[in-house]
């Protein structure tokens, strides 16, 4: 650790800890997940960056969407994202979550993931190689440093819009809203 790092640690320990302890939720969507085992095991060893897979969304702070997102998966993605504690970061992995990729004209996959949950960064490619994951992680570090990885804040602020997008896709959602919607907030105000 150089001196620069130490001053950063002293200034905002939480931010630095988030940088170096990115615990990724085990959530295997699409074909991109096949790239993750090499990333976390011996060959590329993501643990040296503090990136570690964890079992449940409650324990993680990094959400990787690794591949195309079908409608059915999207429901699970939204629930999982909402179950993660704040602060949390989302990374879209591969071209499918960005713009649909090779499924751009499919009736059953979504084209733009960031319409439904906020995404902090993308790793492009089909598939991205493990090295690209590390490049993505270092970019995420920069974003966290500058305070630009604020997807969870945007989700809270524009929750009504996100929820509306989700409902446009699915109709009535099976779970209650995470944050009070505007109407409820109006009611709660004395």
């Amino acid at each position: 650790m150089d001196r620069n790092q130490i001053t950063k640690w002293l200034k905002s320990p939480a931010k630095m800890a988030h940088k170096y302890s990115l615990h990724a939720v085990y959530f295997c969507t699409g074909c991109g997940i096949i790239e993750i085992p090499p990333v976390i095991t011996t060959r590329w060893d993501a643990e040296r960056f503090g990136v570690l897979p964890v079992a449940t969304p409650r324990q993680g702070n990094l959400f990787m969407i690794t591949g195309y997102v079908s409608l059915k998966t999207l429901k699970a993605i939204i629930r999982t994202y909402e179950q993660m504690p704040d602060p949390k970061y989302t990374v879209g992995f591969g071209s499918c979550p960005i713009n649909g990729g090779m499924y751009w004209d499919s009736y059953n996959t979504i084209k733009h993931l960031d319409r439904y949950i906020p995404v902090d960064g993308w790793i492009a490619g089909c598939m991205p190689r493990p090295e690209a994951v590390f490049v993505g992680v270092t970019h995420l570090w920069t974003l966290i440093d500058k305070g630009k990885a604020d997807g969870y804040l945007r989700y809270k602020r524009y929750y009504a819009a996100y929820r509306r997008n989700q409902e446009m896709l699915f109709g009535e959602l099976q779970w209650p809203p995470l944050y009070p919607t505007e109407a409820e907030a109006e009611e709660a105000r004395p």
Partner: protein
Amino acid sequence: MVTRIIQLLLSPLIALAVGVLFLGLSRKIIARIHRRYGPPLYQPVIDVIRMMSQRSISHGSLFELGVVLALAGSLVTVLFIPLGGTVICRQNPLAHGVLCPLSSSGGLLVVMYLMLFGPLGLALGAGDSANPNASIGVSRKLLLALAYEVPFLLVILAVMSHYRTISITEIVARQQESGWGVLSVPLSAVAAFLILPAMLGIRPFDLVSAPQEIASGPLAEYGGSYLALLAVQKGVHLFVVIALYVDLFLGGGVNLATFLVKMLVVFVAAEMIAAVLPRIRIESAVRFCWKWPTALALLQMAITVLSKSV
């Protein structure tokens, strides 16, 4: 009085620091055996800070209190375990530099019971999380505890019968006078080492918090600061178990430094075995614990009882 207060504060802090360090060490050792570079030694500290800064969810008061009970119980246990130092005066070990603040308040039986608080607190908290994964994990945890407690109790009883005392400072003192427990009750030492991974919850006995099968079991709903406290609790528990092993079989330590060195040796040995083994199922774990460690411990106890009665 002042020494006592300092000791009371010091031993849990040592346990915290060493326990968390051991957590990092275990990750590093496993990484090196896997030919990886591995995370830095202080990685668990980063993780704990990160988790503390996240906003956790709660399923109810017991969900929160269970964690508090688990960590507090583990910290209290530390106070009953001598952490090095020579016993000069048996009647008042405190006055002569044994780092065991509550040695006059309870012996080995109390330690065994206090070690219950960790699993019990976690079990109660996890039960309140209304998640079947947690319940399955707790069921496994309690079964595993029953499985390793049978040989462990035999080991403890053999040691207590050998030294004819239930006071743990007394056992340490006797070893420092007349040779280590690993020489006088060797089979018990071997049996205790065989069940050490089960007591620590590391491979091949990490079936309680198996992330791939039952979503890390009792921890399934824990996140944020509760998960941080549970991670710390795991470290302290690790410290307690290994310190107990060192006190029972390796003669404690003349001072804190030698004590920690002995702990390090035991821990690294256990961790190296753990690093090369896969996870086994709960049935196999129970069968293993009730077979070889129990047989060895039983044999040692029979020998001890016979040699004492002759």
